[in-house]
């Protein structure tokens, strides 16, 4: 719209209202200098002391040091000259003299502040959630989740997966005989062995239950078959624990071992819970089987079900065992005992 098309009475009403809201003040400044020639408008809105003609701009408004003399027009938006008071400053370069115009934008800025605060809060929350996610699934997967590249149906989806349970053997008596700090330091040391090996093989940590972990393979993207990932993770856990135990022995610390159980089959994946608290979950017969196998695994041992054994193409190093599992009964399983 062209301003000249606006009727005079409308234009003057808009100008009057805007003028009052902006509470303008201005300095006329000698060209190519900092000297104030004239002061006009509502200066008390912006300055505690009255600026006067003959003063340098930087004396009247210390924050403008280094900005003059003007060579071009520029704008300094949302300057807090006084506490809780926002000012847009317009520097206007003219042939006869330069001008500084001060306009109050406190109300508009306070409204924008609400949006900016919300936006920044969301950025911080997103970063915090990413950090939490990193700890459970690793940075690469966390980034893919954030970019929306990793999806499954949160309402429920059936999928073939491998489930791995790992638990520290003899942790309960160790817990009872040591003080809290030693218990937590020890637990963290062994947890690192477990979590690093799981996350390094595209495993998703489903739960940390006291001194044990449940992880699923086949949910996060991987270049390998999920059963191979689960088995690699199990072997790496046992190797990492064995290495940790060597270091702890040399340092004169107690050593512990872990047992691992793996089972493969169909599971229902989904998100359970309320708006306040939600968690990923995997439900299926083989999940219970993996838990039972882990309960039966000795220190340094990996036990797996037949489906896992077949998917791994029956590795020679594994020994067939028949186990009587609680609530499941007699089960054919396969065992690998490491040196730890």
């Amino acid at each position, binding site marked *: 719209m062209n301003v000249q098309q606006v009727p005079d009475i409308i234009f003057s009403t808009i100008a009057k209202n805007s003028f009052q809201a902006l509470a303008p003040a201005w300095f006329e400044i000698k060209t190519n200098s900092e000297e104030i020639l004239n002061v006009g408008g509502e200066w008390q809105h912006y300055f505690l002391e009255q600026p006067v003609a003959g003063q340098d701009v930087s004396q009247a408004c*210390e*924050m403008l*040091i*280094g*900005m003059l003399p003007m060579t071009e027009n*520029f*704008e*300094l*938006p*949302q*300057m*807090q000259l006084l506490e809780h008071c*926002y000012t847009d400053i317009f520097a206007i370069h003219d042939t006869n003299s330069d001008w500084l115009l001060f306009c109050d934008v406190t109300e508009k*800025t306070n409204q*924008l*502040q609400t949006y*900016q*605060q919300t*936006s*920044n*809060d969301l*950025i*911080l929350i997103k*970063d915090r959630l990413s*950090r939490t996610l990193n700890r459970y699934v690793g940075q690469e997967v966390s980034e893919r989740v954030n970019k929306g590249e990793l999806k499954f149906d949160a309402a429920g989806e059936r999928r073939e997966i491998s489930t791995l349970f790992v638990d520290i053997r003899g942790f309960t008596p160790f817990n009872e005989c040591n003080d809290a700090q030693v218990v937590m330091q020890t637990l963290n040391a062994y947890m690192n062995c477990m979590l690093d090996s799981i996350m390094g093989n595209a495993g998703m940590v489903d739960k940390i239950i006291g001194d044990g972990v449940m992880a699923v393979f086949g949910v996060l993207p991987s270049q390998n078959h999920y059963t191979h990932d689960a088995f690699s993770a199990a072997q790496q856990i046992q190797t990492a624990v064995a290495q940790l135990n060597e270091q702890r022995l040399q340092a004169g610390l107690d050593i512990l071992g872990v047992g691992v159980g793996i089972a493969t089959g169909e599971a229902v994946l989904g998100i359970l819970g309320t708006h306040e608290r939600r968690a990923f979950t995997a439900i299926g017969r083989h999940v219970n089987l993996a838990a039972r196998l882990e309960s039966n695994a000795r220190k340094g041992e990996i036990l797996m079900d037949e489906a896992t054994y077949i998917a791994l193409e029956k590795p020679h190093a594994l020994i067939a065992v028949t186990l009587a599992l609680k609530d499941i009964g007699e089960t054919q399983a396969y065992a690998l005992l490491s040196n730890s």
Partner: protein
Amino acid sequence: MIQKKICILGAAGVGKTSLTARFVFSKFSDKYLSTMGVKIDRKQVEASGQVVNMMLWDIHGEEYKKIPTSYLRGASGIVTVIDGTRPNTVNVAHKILQRVNEELGTLPNIFLINKSDLEDDWNISDAMIQTLRDSGAPVYLTSAKSGDNVESSFLQLAEMLLNP
């Protein structure tokens, strides 16, 4: 007295206002209040045997809107702030600094990697710190909360301003 304008730049929420408040008023608040536009504070320090009035331009974070280059006019030095728990703020710092260099040429700059008190959440690798050091600017791990390295880093910048 020597007057120097310092621009404090970085992504939103990295702790620019908290670092300024710690340096100028020895205060810290856990409450996060997003800065609008520019807030200016001053502190007199002694550097190389001279009194320097550091005029600190605490400028809003970069995410929400681009920093107007007019804010940088007349600046003598830059403080680039990074959040030690958020590695993406390193990239924001690099981008801002590149723009500053294009607009004003190379100014004395220090990098403050803030929130060093949050040890469990620390997420800046040594390699990232090295890329900052490679730019030739000093890098400090600071905590606006505890005050660690805050005063000393600003004083280092004051020295750099007087002895370019």
